[in-house]
């Protein structure tokens, strides 16, 4: 009897420092969040029984962890690429299992529009969600923005925005919605939209991505304002950004936070070689390269 | 003679749900000697199994103590002296009979060669040799029972605790087991057995204890029960003189007649005078005198029913 108690006590005393050490090892490890295999959404929904919200949240969480780890430059040590298609599939199943899961919609809007331009898919998710979250202004608001900013379908955009504005008295939103009707400057609307998104997000990783996006858009805005001033002074569009710097319209060339270089396209629009995304500079699939 | 099992004021209280207390065994005092076959008798739920489980360490006593083979109280030492056959035994059924015996021999720290030779001997003795390489799962009830006896004999223990050793056996099996037990007795071993079959006790046991509702009610040697139990005699006459018939009318009772014989029952006290009468008579021929006993079954019934 005493011998067993002795073993129990000694082992417990020994395990405490060892576990502390293991805890340290684990928290400094490289997280390899796998998305892995997921059956079709119908099967998932049936097998989730009455734990639909929990399962939906779990799927979303997996996507979030996966995304968070890929986006963190210090932990990018695994020889795999970000698998957006899988991420989208998980979000799709997540919102299919529980169509009320706002986190998933929010994340889809934040991560899939700017970063990879899969507007149609995101819109499909949002449209489906709108049928369930009938009270939620977020969904029409996101849809409105997508139609305005990415799809250039201004009529539909304003319809969605009206719907969103009707649902809420949110000052930031009414302000933004109003500007949808009068403002033609996409960049400034984009900035307002991102500021809105940043204010509403709690996830640090998502926030960081959005902040980088905001910085980029603010610099584009800065350059666009430069072009406007150039036109006022010289009554013509500048040929290049370097010309604006040369003539002293802008003081210096801002850096693209994504690591690319800003340039003016044939229509005088501000563009960047990074296409506002990491890791695209060296991609050979990049069709419109830097001119010259 | 030396004491083999000594039980001192042993008691067991089971605590059920809602604090319900069941006193399964009350203050049992018992001493069983070497070379003695002790029969433990009692109706179902009287405390036989509780006693045996206490002795084998499956449960622990609430009060009192016991020692086996003079060992000083350590349960492990007790277990080493004992061969135990559980009631309706069941052994690891995926093992073969041979493997199980080897496992048991090993737990008694027996040497490899003696395990092999002993299990060979016992399997043959108990008529299991042909089945020794078959899994126990495929054994019949009687075969399992016989294997149970083999596994408690393999280390040639001084003390055997057998719980219902005859159950599940066919008549031949019973005779075999009875002979084995009698042989053990002849070799000076102590056998503590519980059984429902009173006849077996009469034949095998030296002493019997009857336990009722957790209490030991009766403890007596079979010899005493047998002599004390004679109530009278059945006498079968081939022929009778009138004088003896007259006599029988007063002291006896006619219980039957067939094929020219007459049988009478005569109470124990009247036997002497009747025989004296008959011996002077030339006509009267006695074919058979048979004692009529108050058997173990009557004693059992009396002890069990009585307060």
């Amino acid at each position: 009897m005493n011998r067993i108690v002795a073993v129990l006590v000694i082992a417990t005393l020994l395990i405490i420092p060892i576990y502390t050490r293991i805890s340290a090892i684990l928290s400094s490890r490289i997280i390899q969040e796998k998305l892995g295999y997921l059956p079709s959404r119908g099967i998932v929904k049936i097998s989730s029984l009455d734990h639909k919200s929990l399962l939906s949240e779990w799927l979303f969480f997996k996507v979030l962890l996966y995304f968070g780890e890929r986006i963190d430059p210090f932990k990018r040590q695994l020889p795999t690429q970000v698998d957006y298609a899988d991420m989208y599939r998980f979000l799709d199943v997540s919102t299919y299992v529980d169509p009320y899961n706002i986190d998933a919609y929010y994340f889809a809007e934040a991560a899939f529009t700017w970063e990879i331009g899969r507007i149609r898919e995101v819109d499909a998710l949002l449209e489906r969600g709108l049928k369930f979250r009938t009270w939620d202004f977020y969904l029409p608001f996101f849809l409105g923005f997508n139609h305005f900013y990415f799809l250039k379908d201004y009529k539909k955009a304003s319809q969605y925005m009206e719907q969103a504005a009707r649902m809420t008295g949110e000052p930031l939103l009414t302000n933004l919605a109003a500007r949808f009707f009068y403002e033609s400057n996409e960049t400034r609307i984009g900035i307002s939209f991102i500021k809105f998104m940043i204010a509403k997000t709690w996830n640090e990783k998502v926030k960081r991505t959005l902040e980088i996006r905001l910085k980029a858009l603010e610099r584009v805005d800065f350059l666009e304002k430069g072009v406007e001033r150039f036109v006022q002074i010289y009554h013509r569009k500048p040929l290049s950004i370097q010309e604006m710097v040369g003539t002293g319209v802008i003081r210096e060339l801002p850096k693209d936070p994504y690591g690319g270089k800003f340039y003016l396209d044939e229509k005088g629009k501000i563009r960047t070689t990074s296409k506002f995304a990491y890791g695209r500079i060296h991609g050979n699939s990049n069709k419109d390269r830097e001119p010259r | 003679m030396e004491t083999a099992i000594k039980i001192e004021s042993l008691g067991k209280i089971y605590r059920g749900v809602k604090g319900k207390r069941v006193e399964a065994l009350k203050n049992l005092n018992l001493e069983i000697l070497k070379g003695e076959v002790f029969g433990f008798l009692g109706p179902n739920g009287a405390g036989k199994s509780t006693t045996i489980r206490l002795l084998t360490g499956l449960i622990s006593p609430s009060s009192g103590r016991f020692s086996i083979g003079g060992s000083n109280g350590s349960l492990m030492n007790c277990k080493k002296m004992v061969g135990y056959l559980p009631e309706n035994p069941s052994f690891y059924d995926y093992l073969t009979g041979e493997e199980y015996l080897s496992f048991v021999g090993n737990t008694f720290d027996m040497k490899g060669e003696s395990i092999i030779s002993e299990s060979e001997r016992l399997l043959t003795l108990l008529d299991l040799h042909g089945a020794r390489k078959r899994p126990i799962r495929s054994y019949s009830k009687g075969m399992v029972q016989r294997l149970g006896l083999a596994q408690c004999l393999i280390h040639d223990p001084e003390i055997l605790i057998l719980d219902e050793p005859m159950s599940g056996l066919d008549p031949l099996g019973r005779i075999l087991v009875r002979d084995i037990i009698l042989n053990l007795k002849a070799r000076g071993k102590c056998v503590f057995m519980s059984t429902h079959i009173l006849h077996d006790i009469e034949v095998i046991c030296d002493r019997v204890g009857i336990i009722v509702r957790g209490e030991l009610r009766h403890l007596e040697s079979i010899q005493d029960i047998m002599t004390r139990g004679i109530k009278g005699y059945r006498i079968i006459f081939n022929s009778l003189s009138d004088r003896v018939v007259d006599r029988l009318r007063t002291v006896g009772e006619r219980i039957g007649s067939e094929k020219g014989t007459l049988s009478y029952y005569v109470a124990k006290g009247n036997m002497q005078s009747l025989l004296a009468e008959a011996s002077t008579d030339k006509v009267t021929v006695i074919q058979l005198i048979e004692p009529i006993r108050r058997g173990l079954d009557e004693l059992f019934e009396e002890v069990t029913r009585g307060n």
Partner: protein
Amino acid sequence: MLRCRNLFPNQAFGIAKVTLTGGRRDKVFITLIFISVISFLAVIPAASSLSMRQVREVAVNLSLSTISFVSLVLTVFFGVHLIYRDMEQRFVHAVLPLPISRGSYLIGKFLGLSAILAIGLTILSLFSSIGILIASATYKSQIPMLWENYVAAVFFEYLELLILASFAVFFSSFSTTVFLPLFSTVSVYIIGNVTQSVAEYIASPYGQKLPRFSIYISKAVYYIFPNLTAFDLKAKAIYSLRMSFSDLSFIFLYAVLYILIILSASLLVFRRREIA
């Protein structure tokens, strides 16, 4: 030598041997191992070839996942039935009256289960290696295959299973049904696998906003339940990442101590158990 005999007496090895024999002859064991071997040799090479870029990596991944799943089923199945079956079929009534202490019985049972799992894992890893070799022959990987990582991954999987097995023994030591050990062991597995993620989540800024109460609960869970994340070396095996020997030694020690703790607790309970 004397001490060693005291710790694991002959009787414990006897019980272990019997348990192992029972495991080897069990239909569930044979069937599961057979199905896994088939899947390693046929399904995994075929399935991995569907991956365009990393056939070998997918094969390793699938193999380890299969091993982990199959051996988990084996552990839970055998672990839960280990003592329950002996009680239910009244084998203990014949075994415990033999000169086998309760401790030897429990330790013997655990050793027997460990041996069953060791045999199962050995067969599984051997055949999965063949499957991986077949798969890697079809497409050359950029990363070298480190077999020592693969072996380490399987070995640490084994340690994880032994911890679970000790829990199964612990729950069986006082339970009279099969359900309590079953659900509790599965719960320990689930909790053990998420506790690290939960702890990291709690430590993150968002986690700080949770109610005090749930933070304390999660911390208690983190320190009391086994942290099974430590035993997951799949990524190291799949991508042939470097492993730190000292880290692994700590994890090994952790497993050994954890098993010791749970087994001695089981023993304290089982000694007092009345076998009716």
